[in-house]
């Protein structure tokens, strides 16, 4: 499973590096974490085509961060999009899934090597 986390809107200001997509190769994570992510993805119905996974921002929301999380596994692919707090997401499993994904995206977000050349 491969997960791409991007933040098209970085909040109260725009940071090109915080907006840069980060790729998490789930199979390279510790087995326990990888299994948990895969299980949450199934419970949340990430690949269930009948479920809407794009949630428009609430009215009046300003300076909120916008997230896009693309999950790919084999020939299946799905993208979750939302803006602002995770309570914009409609179910508990989806919230748990994106919380865990974002937790693992943080250490993956390193400055590009070229900046230190």
């Amino acid at each position, binding site marked *: 499973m491969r997960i791409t986390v991007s933040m098209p809107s970085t909040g*109260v200001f725009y940071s*090109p590096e915080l907006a840069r997509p980060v790729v998490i190769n789930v199979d390279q994570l510790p087995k326990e974490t990888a299994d948990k992510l895969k299980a949450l993805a199934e419970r949340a119905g990430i690949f269930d085509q009948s479920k809407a996974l794009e949630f428009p921002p609430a009215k009046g929301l300003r300076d909120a961060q916008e997230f896009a999380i693309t999950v790919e596994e084999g020939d299946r692919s799905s993208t979750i999009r939302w803006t602002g*707090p995770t309570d914009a997401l409609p179910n508990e499993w989806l919230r748990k899934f994106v919380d865990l994904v974002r937790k693992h995206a943080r250490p993956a977000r390193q400055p590009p090597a070229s900046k230190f050349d």
Partner: protein
Amino acid sequence: MCIHNHRHSIFCILPPYMLRSVMLNGTGAQKAAASATLGVDSTFRAMRAQLAASVPLEVRRRRVLGLLPSKQRTISTAGNNETLPGTVVRAEGSGPTGDKATDEAYDGLGHTFDFFSIVYQRNSIDDEGLPLNATVHYGDAYNNAFWNGQRMVFGDGDGDLFNRFTIALDVIGHELGHGVTEDEAGLVYFQQPGALNEHLSDVWGSLIKQWVLKQNADKADWLIGAGLLGSAVQGKALRSMKAPGTAYDDPKLGKDPQPAHMDDYVDTFSDNGGVHINSGIPNKAFYLAATAIGGKAWEKAGRIWYATTRDVRVTEGTKFHEFAAVTIDVAGQLPGIKKPDVKAVAEAWAEVGIVPTA
């Protein structure tokens, strides 16, 4: 909520805050005329009471009772969860809690309320005395502050890239400024109207800080979010109105992408069409106008921008050149704004490559 009836040409030509200013500062004849106009205005206001049935009870009550502007602040904590509004930790009139984020939010809301009330005679963000609510300690190491349409929400920052988001008064003013813009112009949050929305929040945020510090325009730092970036970050703030594009250049944040001129306007779908990016252009124009006019920026440049925000010609889809045209027109009509001031505004827009057209 925006009811807009206070700006209808049938009801008044000059808004009451301007008439009250004329009554205080005008000649004898001007004072008499302003007094008479305010009297007529009051009659129309009574007629408008019929329209108020569609206004929420809380607002109607404040209006009917004729309550004087007074702060009604409530600070809650989310306890590092992402649930709003959280638990109330400080309400209006209670003393400091000792928690920095709580007390900074409380004070920042107070400064913002006082600024709009004293400088522009605006009664809170809706001009109807709306209570000001904020939530602090939102999320786990949450790197942002936002306005959710009803309250301000502040993260603690991760302590690495960002300090707590209540640390900068101008950021607090910025967030509440979104409420003012939503109530008045309702600029949509996308591309140029969205960048104007962001620009106006930066204007109010910076002016509130300058007002609290009693600074002249030439002494202000014109930074948004000074002190917010972590000590290891190569940067001084989130944005610079004086020199857009120079606030930070850091391996973890990238380089400040704000342009200062229309030649460098960024076409993008990120950031809601570049609302935090292209706001650098009108930000620079405001800085140029305010410093060219001189003195306290909130007294003339700020007043022109405030009157522009309330002008009926500024609507949800207004673009840079249209907004610029209204600033120049409004400046030419405001009492106390002289021809050189109007010229300074026009030249500021020209300098950033914006040609004002209605």
